[in-house]
């Protein structure tokens, strides 16, 4: 362990010396030289209970993501599916530094964030399946999870789209004179959105308690960070906006937690927004539809040697805080939790077709007007009427449309194929139709 650390430190020194314009061309760098992970600081292990919590959370995310990936290939999950395998330390470290009343707002790669905040895995899986019991009732999908009770303020499918919202959450925390803070996660790709500068400036100008956590997994889809950002030390990108930054080892859960704790304290107590960059790596493709032609197998393998779960597991075993048997037990628990989630999602019904217009507007008192006008049917109708007084024609058309979901009519939709028996679907044609992002 110590040796590996020293080696990494040395690499880091080299990286520091060769930052920015003087960096060697990409092809001249070995995989381990491509943004070597900052070893960060050395942190004492917390007590057994906390080590267990960390392991359990990281394992739950890992197993959930793996199983979600399988369910995607079995066509139980549609759309895009972005897995965070490899990024567990960044997610768990960050959320462990937060208070319950703090807000977390994230990107579309956010299943793990919801789980780490304590959202029921069953309802997360059900959302991925597009079922009625999903956290967003099947209106959101994988990219749009949300849990108001856990103050998990959402996944967002627009790259950078969550940044202004984070500022608003910080504004509300400030306005309401609470000492709640906000953690806003974004990717290394999102940092180049115009929103980034606008949001950092406004947060700093108004002294809002927001920590911008850049999960630098070194790629925005297939574009490597050095092909998208002139300054690749992303912790420095807040400098001109009055948002100080720090970098941490996104593969080391304790380092992420520590850095986030510092940042949250400064944000909360000094009313000074912060940026933290967690350097990590995603082990899977950008989404399930990614053939990964933009990086070498060797590079991925190099980073897999820094697997945040294995490295932390090795350390707790080495220091005799938790045994291999314990870890195996946690892993079994994680797997069965995920199994239950899959079962729950499988048995949850698809939303009723009436739910098409649900939760679009809040109606107060008697509804005076046509909030939603549906002009698709022979009889134009108020959208909200599908539920109350829709004509047979409307219902038939809704059923006809839903039939294209290829899950049968209303009756059949309730009893769905067993995903275990479901055919392995090649993800090819589906992905070609929907693109890959």
């Amino acid at each position, binding site marked *: 362990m110590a040796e590996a650390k020293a080696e990494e430190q040395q690499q880091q020194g080299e990286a520091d010396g060769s930052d920015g314009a003087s960096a060697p061309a990409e092809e001249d760098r070995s995989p381990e030289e491509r943004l070597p992970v900052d070893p960060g600081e050395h942190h004492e292990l917390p007590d057994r209970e906390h080590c267990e919590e960390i392991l359990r959370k990281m394992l739950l995310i890992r197993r959930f993501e793996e199983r979600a990936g399988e369910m995607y290939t079995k066509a139980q999950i549609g759309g895009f599916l972005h897995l965070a395998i490899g990024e567990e330390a960044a997610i768990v470290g960050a959320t462990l530094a937060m208070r319950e009343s703090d807000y977390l707002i994230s990107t579309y790669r956010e299943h793990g964030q919801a789980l780490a905040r304590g959202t029921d895995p069953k309802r997360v899986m059900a959302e991925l399946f597009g079922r009625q019991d999903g956290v967003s009732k099947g*209106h*959101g999908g994988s990219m749009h999870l949300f849990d108001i009770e856990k103050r998990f303020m959402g996944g*967002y499918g627009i790259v950078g789209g969550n940044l202004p*919202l*984070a500022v608003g959450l910080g504004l*509300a925390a400030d306005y309401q004179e609470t000492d709640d803070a906000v953690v806003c996660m974004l990717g290394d790709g999102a940092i180049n959105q115009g929103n980034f500068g606008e949001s950092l400036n406004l947060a700093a100008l108004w002294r809002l308690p927001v920590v911008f956590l850049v999960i630098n997994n070194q790629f925005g889809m297939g574009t490597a960070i050095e092909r998208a950002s002139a300054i690749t030390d992303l912790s420095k990108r807040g400098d001109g906006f009055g948002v100080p930054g720090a970098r941490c080892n996104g593969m080391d859960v304790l380092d992420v937690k520590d850095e986030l704790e510092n940042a949250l304290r400064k944000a909360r107590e000094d009313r000074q927004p912060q940026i933290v960059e967690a350097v990590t790596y995603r082990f899977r493709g950008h989404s399930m539809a990614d053939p990964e032609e933009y990086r070498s197998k060797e590079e991925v393998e190099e980073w897999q040697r820094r697997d945040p779960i294995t490295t932390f597991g090795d350390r707790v075993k080495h220091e005799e805080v938790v045994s291999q048997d314990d870890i195996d037990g946690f892993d079994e628990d994680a797997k069965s939790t995920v199994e239950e989630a899959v079962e729950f999602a499988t048995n949850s019904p698809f939303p009723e077709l009436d739910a098409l217009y649900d939760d679009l507007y809040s109606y107060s008192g008697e509804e*005076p007007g046509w909030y939603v006008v549906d002009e698709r049917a022979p009889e134009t109708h108020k959208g909200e009427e599908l539920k109350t007084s829709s004509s047979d024609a409307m219902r038939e058309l809704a059923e006809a449309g839903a039939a294209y979901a290829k899950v049968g009519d209303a009756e059949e939709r309730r009893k769905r194929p067993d995903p275990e028996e479901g055919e392995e679907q090649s993800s090819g044609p589906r992905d070609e139709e929907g693109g890959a992002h």
Partner: protein
Amino acid sequence: MAEMRYREALNQALREELEADENVFIMGEDIGVFQGAFKVTDGLLEDFGEKRVRDTPISENTIVGAGVGAAMAGLRPIVEIMTINFSLLALDQIINAAASVRYMFGGQVGVPMVIRMPQGGGHQLGPTHSHCFEAIYLHIPGLLVAVPTTAADAKGLLKAAVRDENPVIFIEHEGLYGKKGDVPENGDASPMRFGEAAIRREGDDVTIVGISRQALTAAEAAETLADEHEIEAEVIDPRTLRPLDLDTIVESVKKTNRAVIVEEGWPHGGVGANLAALIQEQAFDHLDAPVGRVTGADTPMPYSKPLEQAAMPHPEHVVKTVLSTFRDL
């Protein structure tokens, strides 16, 4: 009742809502120290302080997004965008966030927020400052859209907008800010309801629906039609486009058998195009002529005065279109 200008009525509404609810606050570019590009927020900073009346940097998308975030966390923001053209920089947050959040998160949170912005030509501001985009916002499910024409409506609808649980696009008109009208005074001014059209003038011969300032153009045209052509027009100002008081419009068309829609925005995909579709769907058998439309010209707004006026609808255009619906077919 007190007579006041449209901008003063808006100012009163803001003032009353700021007084009524601690969670209401205003933010926007130059709304505080400068008191608003159109002076709608005159005096509010002085009276309510910097917490409630917040000058922002020039960052439309982030101002709107910050409003959405604050609304999700329990506040009731009113965001002013200086001119409707600038709201295009905030379309991401307006559509992908404000309009979608409630729906995409299964109703777990709402976005009780008002986004105010003026629109309209006539001041020679050229192609980036003069457009009318109510059709863009009408297009988006999840938003409410108000287009008040009179001082009283400006006040009543703004108060209602602030109290509504949905995100509201509140479209004012630059050409109306100085117009005077009677407004119920503080105390007896209850907020109006969205989705209730106003019948500005009754008539049996043709229904003219005027949007935003064009409700006034429609009313002027109606007088000419009565004086010079013995045509009694019924003039309807829908006041809000979402929800839309389609019932009042359709009832009127069933009585008059003719409809003309007047708007300042562009013809393709416009409010009138949409309304014409709805009218023919709902009242086809009652129509004696195709639904007529009067719109702004299908060009960016030109600067030169005669060109600009040529690009905008005037009563003459309305009269002509109404008369065309009386042609023998």
